[in-house]
């Protein structure tokens, strides 16, 4: 653990004036948590502020640019790659008090929100009006729209509806120097100018501070149904996944859990599938009741081709929930399966999934590490959790070696280092394996256009 560069007395006076009362924090005991996130990396910030209006953010970013002090936007700090860690010190800016839903417009199919709104809470408010904001990262109940936008969060519904980037129509942000900008708008189509909205989504807090986001809404599907199917092997399950698409079906979710992942869940909860299962697919359909009923029949038929050993269909909310809960339990279960895990979210072209999964299993065997494999297979997105005990140097070495081999395997298959978590600090060392020097330099030059002195979440992402 390190000590952050301390703040000059004048800087502290500025923050106290701009953020009166409990809105500025300087004691290390209270700032401690603001130095970390779900990556479990840590560096103490120089100060923490919690604005409750945009004018405060504007003043802060003007001041920070003049003083060259790093700015670290922070929602609920649920990202797993270190995006919220003030690795070179600086001022953490919490969005906890910028958490208002400003507008829900059922005619424009648009919502306007502040960055600190919890995505799940927005979805609850929208559902009451028959509306849907489609992105649903696993952290949907406890992460914010601002954070989801900063990382371009994915989720289970991405296979049908796309990722966060596909559902943000416009952004208001403050740039270093205190300049307010507005990108995009509230039209569902917009091709005027360069698409700065899509550039800002997924920028991991490196370009500006989001103050307001305009979101694209959809009609809430009237009906859903869930099918769980277990197969003797991962390969058979992935073959079935291919059969589903080939039959002309586009599920709203398509999740895979391989044997080790299923065992981790079984260790904390009763599971319905037989011991002989080597993998399970969870599929959800949505639409009108008639369409869901027809698609369910087709889905049940096509998933039989690859030789399932068990299946269960759920059409009531409660039965569906019971099946999806098994998938959600995987995250808590994984924490209990071993003292430490390396958590990657590699993604490959859909057609390369079987090769990727076989390769990951082989690497696990060769390195002698246990790997929990699961993921959003409809997107080619595999979550690879390398379980180990970091206190054992040999185990740690094997886990780190396995990680590097898996990342390289996925790149060799035309995939990407990250499908949804982002780069942050944790994937930065591998970035040159995926991005060329020209492209990476372009990204850095683009950053300098918005942030000439490099104060926005410095030394992260690209």
């Amino acid at each position, binding site marked *: 653990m390190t000590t952050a560069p301390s703040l000059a007395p004048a800087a502290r006076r500025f923050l106290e004036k701009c953020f009166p009362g409990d809105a500025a924090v300087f004691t*290390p005991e*209270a700032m401690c948590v603001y130095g970390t996130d779900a990556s479990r990396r840590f560096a103490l910030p120089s100060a923490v502020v919690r604005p409750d209006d945009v004018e405060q953010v504007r003043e802060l970013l003007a001041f920070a640019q003049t003083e060259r002090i790093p700015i670290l936007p922070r929602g609920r700090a649920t990202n797993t790659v270190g995006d919220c860690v003030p690795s070179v010190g600086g001022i953490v800016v919490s969005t906890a008090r910028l958490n208002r839903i400003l507008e829900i417009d059922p005619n424009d199919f648009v919502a306007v929100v502040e960055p600190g709104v919890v995505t799940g809470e927005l979805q609850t408010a929208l559902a009451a009006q028959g509306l849907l904001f489609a992105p649903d990262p696993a952290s949907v109940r406890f992460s914010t729209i601002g954070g989801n936008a900063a990382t371009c969060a994915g989720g289970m519904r991405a296979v049908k509806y796309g990722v966060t980037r596909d559902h943000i129509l416009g952004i208001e942000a403050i740039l270093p120097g205190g300049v307010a900008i507005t990108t995009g708008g509230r039209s569902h189509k917009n091709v005027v100018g360069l698409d700065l909205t899509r550039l800002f989504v997924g920028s991991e807090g490196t370009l500006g501070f989001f103050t307001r986001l305009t979101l694209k809404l959809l009609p809430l599907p009237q009906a859903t149904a869930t099918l769980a199917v277990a197969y003797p092997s991962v390969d058979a399950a992935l073959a079935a996944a291919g059969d589903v698409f080939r039959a002309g079906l586009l599920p709203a979710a398509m999740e895979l859990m391989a044997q080790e992942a299923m065992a981790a869940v079984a260790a904390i909860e009763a599971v319905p599938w037989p011991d002989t299962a080597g993998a399970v697919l969870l599929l959800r359909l949505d639409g009108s009741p008639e369409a869901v009923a027809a698609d369910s029949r087709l889905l049940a038929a096509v998933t039989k081709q690859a030789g399932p050993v068990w299946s269960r269909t759920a059409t009531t909310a409660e039965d569906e929930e019971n099946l999806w809960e098994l998938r959600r339990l995987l995250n808590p279960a994984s924490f209990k399966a071993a003292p430490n895990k390396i958590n990657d979210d590699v993604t490959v072209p859909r057609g390369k999934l079987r090769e990727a999964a076989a390769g990951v299993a082989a690497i696990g065997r060769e390195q002698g590490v246990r790997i929990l494999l699961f993921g959003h297979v409809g997107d080619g997105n595999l979550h690879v959790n390398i379980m180990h005990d970091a206190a054992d140097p040999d185990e740690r070495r094997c886990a780190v070696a396995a990680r590097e081999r898996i990342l390289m395997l996925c790149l060799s298959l035309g995939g990407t280092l990250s499908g949804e978590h982002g780069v942050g600090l944790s994937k930065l060392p591998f970035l040159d394996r995926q991005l060329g020097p020209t492209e990476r330099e372009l990204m850095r030059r683009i950053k300098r256009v918005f942030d000439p002195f490099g104060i926005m979440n410095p030394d992260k992402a690209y």
Partner: protein
Amino acid sequence: MSDKSPPTQGLLDRTDQPDCVLCGRCLSVCPLFAATGREEFSPRAKFFLTQALASGQLDLSSTKAADLLTSVCLSCGKCESVCPMGLCGPDLAARVRAAHPGFAGYLWKLWIERAGLVWPLAMAVAKFVPKGLPIEAITRAKASLDALGSGQAPAPWLFPETFDRRHAGQKAVLFAGCVAEYATPQWKDMAKRLLGGLGIEVLPDPGFTCCGCTLGHAGASDAQATMQQHNIEAWRRAGRPTMVVFCASCRCGLRSYTRKDLGLTASERETWSGGLVSLSDLLGDTTFRTGEAAPPAVRYHQPCHGAGGNQDLAMLRRAVGERLLFRENETPCCGFGGLTKLTAPELSDLVAARAFAIYAPKPGDQVVTGCAGCVTQLRASAPNGVIVGHWLEIMG
């Protein structure tokens, strides 16, 4: 706190506790975080601060850290219910408090000097106060808060018509709890009348004291154990009868006896758990008539200490019908629990204000609940024209 020895020392050698994985789930349920936007109050912050202290790699003031760790937690336990590691914020606060060598004395002083709205509890614990402390202060707090007794209580508007007599002829004791014992004896009277209607014979009070629930989280584990032993002895003397409760927190506190080694034999544990019943459950199929004083809408406030089910909600749904408002995704904490009411009353008030902001009651509406602490807190912070009561108070 100003004790010189490191207040968090007792935590440093613990290895049986899993580490917080910093996932952030607890922030979504922590009422203190919701009301203040101050992440340093969240369970995640406290577990991380504890880990940082233990690592010793950061220059932290253990006194300031202990202040954060011990004084701001509402003991609602919502964090534990969502934590993938099963960590419990209130337990952490209690551990830090218990580990602090000067904390017991500090705590008693707090009880006495700042009793405020917690005076009924302070009255109940008064006999356990170490000698030499001026307990007169509690009586002063009581005098200034007599308005809480019945002044703003709802007028009855729900009247039993036909009682469910399936338990008629059975005998039971009433475990009334501190608030009913010292502040609102009319709750006890109403409970006895209802039990009479059900045909259940109420045995004499065997001399129960506070359930001890609050004391445990306050870090006064010795005093808590003494009270628990006292209650068990009283129960044994009375012939191990069925205990009827009408306060969710008391029920929660009493249920926890069987999870601790308090000298209950295996068969006694079974009798204790099985014999702990909610008055709402006993009302069963009792039917009610709605009187003219009924408000347009009545919101059910779900106590955080509702462990073991929602007996009150189920009963009220049957009895009140559509007039009763309850939404699963709107269950804010009242802000009464833990020590925060004493250590940081302004934070506790913010939490109550947020609860009312969520409920958004109109003048003339009522809020009912089944926990004495929630009633006390919400009644003191209700907006004008909104009446808060224990459900016993709406019955006549």
